[in-house]
């Protein structure tokens, strides 16, 4: 009863809401994590697709997951040397 009134007037958050919020956040990170093997697959697929459209240094292609403002970003950096003019047209 006392704790109920405290919550009603004191604005203290239910501990289960706290648990839920923390869980949701930690699961965003957990679910976005990729194994090194999967990252390597992604890297190879990216090289295959992108090389249809442009020439670039494959060794310099950099793929990584990053956290930004509570969002998971896939960051891909590719130094392009030249674009294939008629690709895919």
């Amino acid at each position, binding site marked *: 009863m006392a*704790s109920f009134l405290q919550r009603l007037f004191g604005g203290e958050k239910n501990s*289960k809401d706290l*648990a839920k919020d*923390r869980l949701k956040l*930690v*699961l965003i990170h957990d679910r976005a994590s990729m194994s090194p093997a999967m990252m390597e697959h992604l890297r190879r697929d990216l090289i295959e697709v992108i090389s249809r459209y442009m020439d670039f240094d494959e060794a310099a292609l950099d793929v990584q997951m990053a956290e930004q403002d509570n969002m998971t970003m896939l960051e891909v950096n590719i130094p392009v040397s030249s674009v294939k003019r008629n690709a895919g047209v």
Partner: protein
Amino acid sequence: MGEVIVVTSGKGGVGKTTTAANIGTGLAAQGKRVVLMDTDIGLRNLDVVMGLENRIVYDIVDIAQGHCKLKQGMIKDKRFPELYLIPAAQTKDKTAVTEEQVRAICNELKQEADYIIVDCPAGIEQGFKNAIAGADRAIVVTNPEVSAVRDADRIIGLLEAHGLGNPQLVLNRVRPNMVRQGDMMSVDDILEILAIKLLGVIPDDDSIVISTNRGEPTVLDQQSRAGQAYRNIVKRILGEEVPLMNLEVEEGFFARLMKLFKGN
């Protein structure tokens, strides 16, 4: 042709073995032919929960490595004629059996039994891979706690990656008083987070401790609320539509008055 159901959780201590024992026993009580299989090699416990620890001669490693016939390694339950236990080995480690061996045992059992309930070890390593190798579907057990739910989410992902999509959830050790007070995540909270189908909810119940002490699965205790929850789960596995039971314990007027004075 029988069905292989693996009971898994990721985190240890959430009630996997208790759930496997109660579901298996409950199915046998409904007249089904059931084999319980403990794959937690090195840390076997399904035998003591079932009260069959004194009958063990052979174990799953003996069966896998051909030291005995499958039938010889199956311990007959003392309560039901069509309930059997294949115990884990206690002195070996989780690499003593392979995924192929477990799959072969499951396939052989499916010819005779209606249900094969596999008790999976905690963790996500080889023991987990062995346990799910022969499974047709999976049950994920968790508690309404941050750590257990997090691990359940990981396990759901891994099950999916191994071709066991759409597992069903058993939420164990729910304390209705704490849920009402906002100090424990509710069934709905957890379903929202995990996005998974619910198989059943088990209230936190002293009768589980007592029945485990005795080696008698709670599902057979007609007075137990946890037992009732497990009986409902068994009916749902058999395809019956059973509504979730009300977890609130009926309190008399006097008990409620006392609570009001005590301030909770």
